[in-house]
């Protein structure tokens, strides 16, 4: 018995920014949902079920906020489902929503993910001291910087690769009206002068804190076929998890990510990802993660990912595998929504709806998200053609 074919038929997101004081959390979420519904030519009356994702509730200080948000989403009387898989949650939420359709249980599902970082203090929430332990922990940057250092050492990558990725993503973001940071003037020289926050991670190599939301409408094949607009057919989804820390763990290129991408390619029938994928939106909160994930995803051999960056392969213009044409997490980071933005941007690319950051002729795109201590992975492949 095969799964029901399904497609993304609507994508919506807010303008991501450091503080959306003009809307409540409910208003923020509704904005993204309304845009996705409009994109699909639907209203909430058409929606069978809502799947909501966000990162830890303590980021805003509202426990299980989907309960309260159900009314603002006009979801009363419908199934509302809440996913939380750490930073990968936006991607996981899209996948769980897709599975609601693939299972044959629902026809039209709205997936929503959000974070309103300005309503709380993420750096505090991510660094709550644990009793009996040494309080050296310093947010996500402090957590990931040692792994970046390990990657640089092991791959012998030149020190400017992180800055190159940062300049690329900040430049790409200028073509994306929804991106948080619009900073057109970065040069490699200026980026190299950017202060070290969590050495070896520079300020410019770090994602911002954003308020933002994203939403997708996912529809079953018969519904999608009847809609006039472009679709992003979901060719494959994959998720994997492993423990945060264990003896001998590869924290630079975790096995869960390798297994997840291997399954993704197998399910999508892709044998040479670098050649067959046209564009990828991958979760890069610190710029060095671009070469690290290129290797983990199988786009490059071990210790060779940085060469794709250096050779311009991942550039939006002229690159054969543009990475994060939207500007990526590095330019907008509403944490819980960031994964869904990757999945949604991948869909927009194959729908031909990516505007000024459209990759010409994109037919096959990848959305990728990871979370926790690089231990939760969620990925999908979407295509312009029905699988």
């Amino acid at each position: 018995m095969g799964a029901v074919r399904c497609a993304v038929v609507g994508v919506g997101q807010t303008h991501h920014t450091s503080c959306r004081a003009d809307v409540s959390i409910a208003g923020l979420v509704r904005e993204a949902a309304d845009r996705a519904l409009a994109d699909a030519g639907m209203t909430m009356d058409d929606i069978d079920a809502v799947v909501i994702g966000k990162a830890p509730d303590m980021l805003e200080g509202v426990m299980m906020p989907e309960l309260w948000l159900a009314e603002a989403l006009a979801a009363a009387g419908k199934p509302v489902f809440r996913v939380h898989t750490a930073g990968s949650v936006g991607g996981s939420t899209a996948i769980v929503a897709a599975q609601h359709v693939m299972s044959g249980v629902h026809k039209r599902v709205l997936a929503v993910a959000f974070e309103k970082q300005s309503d709380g203090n993420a750096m505090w929430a991510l660094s709550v001291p644990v009793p009996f332990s040494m309080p050296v922990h310093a947010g996500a940057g402090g957590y990931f910087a040692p792994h970046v250092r390990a990657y640089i050492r092991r791959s012998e990558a030149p020190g400017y690769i992180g800055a190159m990725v940062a300049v690329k993503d900040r430049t790409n973001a200028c073509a994306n009206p929804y991106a948080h940071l619009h900073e057109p003037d970065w040069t490699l020289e200026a980026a190299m002068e950017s202060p070290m926050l969590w050495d070896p991670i520079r300020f410019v190599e770090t994602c911002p804190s954003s308020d933002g939301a994203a939403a997708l409408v996912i529809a079953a094949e018969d519904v999608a076929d009847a809609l006039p607009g472009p679709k992003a057919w979901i060719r494959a989804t994959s998720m994997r998890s492993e423990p945060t820390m264990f003896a001998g763990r590869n924290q630079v290129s975790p096995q869960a990510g390798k297994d997840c991408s291997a399954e993704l390619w197998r399910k999508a029938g892709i044998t040479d990802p670098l050649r067959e994928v046209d564009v990828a939106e991958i979760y890069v909160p610190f710029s060095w993660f671009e070469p690290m994930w290129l290797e983990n995803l199988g786009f490059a051999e071990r210790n060779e990912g940085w060469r794709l960056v250096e050779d311009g392969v991942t550039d939006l213009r002229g690159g054969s595998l543009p990475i994060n044409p939207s500007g990526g997490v590095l330019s907008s980071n509403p944490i819980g929504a960031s994964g869904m933005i990757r999945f949604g941007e991948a869909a927009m690319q194959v729908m031909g709806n990516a505007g000024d950051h459209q990759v010409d002729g994109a037919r096959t795109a990848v959305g990728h998200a990871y979370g926790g201590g690089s231990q939760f992975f969620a990925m999908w492949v979407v295509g312009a053609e029905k699988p």
Partner: protein
Amino acid sequence: MRDVAVVASAHSAVSATTDTPIELLIPVINEALANAGLERREVDFWCHGSCDYLVGQPFSFVSAVDALGAWPPIVESHVEMDGAWALYEAWIKIQTGEADTALVFGNGKSSVADMFRVMALQLDPYVEAPLGTDQIALAGLQARMALDAGVITERDMAEVAARSRRDALANPVALVSGEVSVDDLLAADKVRDPLRAHDIPAMGDGVTAVVIAAGDRARSLASRPAWIRAIDHRIDAQRIGGRDLIGVPSAVAAAERCGVGGDRIDVAEIHAPFTHEELLVGRALGIDAATTRINPSGGALVSNVLMAAGLARIARAAETVLDGTADRVIGHATQGPCLQQNLVCVMEGA
């Protein structure tokens, strides 16, 4: 739809423990797997329900992966919901054909904070949560409405408590149990008018784990699987003053979608931490107490392990099918203030 069944389960609950959540999880997960005769490597999909606010730490669920022996890496997901919804996600996953077996679990340590206060932090953060109310007061508001409407009586509520405690005598993880007379219960002072102590749940630290499987796999793992014939969940708008607190429309809708009204129901495990909630949900589901055995486990009233108690209701109902004492049963789960969100799972032995 593929045929999917509950094939095994396991539970723990204590009033308070210094064991970590992981130390609590491992034996229960092992027991559920052993009851199913399943190896860890044979679990296609894992799904977990828990809540950071019960722990006071962001990403608290992350360490639960440690309890799963997740090496090599596993296919796994987490819901910030009661474990009953983890079971729902696993059921969906099996329906896609990507998995044949799943282990789902919910866990909570109620002893680490004033959970009645914490649960009220689910309210609208701008207007209602800052009022500083708690879950008991909210339950009291709902009970008062139902009492004043003449839908239930304080005696009805005490009878729920007396029956639950009596049934709990046979439940090894019940936290309160015993023979008590309804009149004695009604003679007690009110804790939060109209609620007396017997109307309020015994809070626990613990875990519920459930194994579900598809088709022949389920038949190979249990001699009498509890086949999930229908499962559905619905939500109401949260605002306490803006919805039908007595009719519980989301429970009515979920029951309708599951076709509950059709045949006889032998057993209904209703997730009702407060006595009046059992009565209101029973009405909403159309359960006839004359022909349906309600909460033979004693229910959440005698053992309320947050984020596990809803999954436990599905498991307890399924266990009556697995052991051959019932044929058609309902497991119900709820979450959100005053029965806001409701899940109904209808299971049959054949």
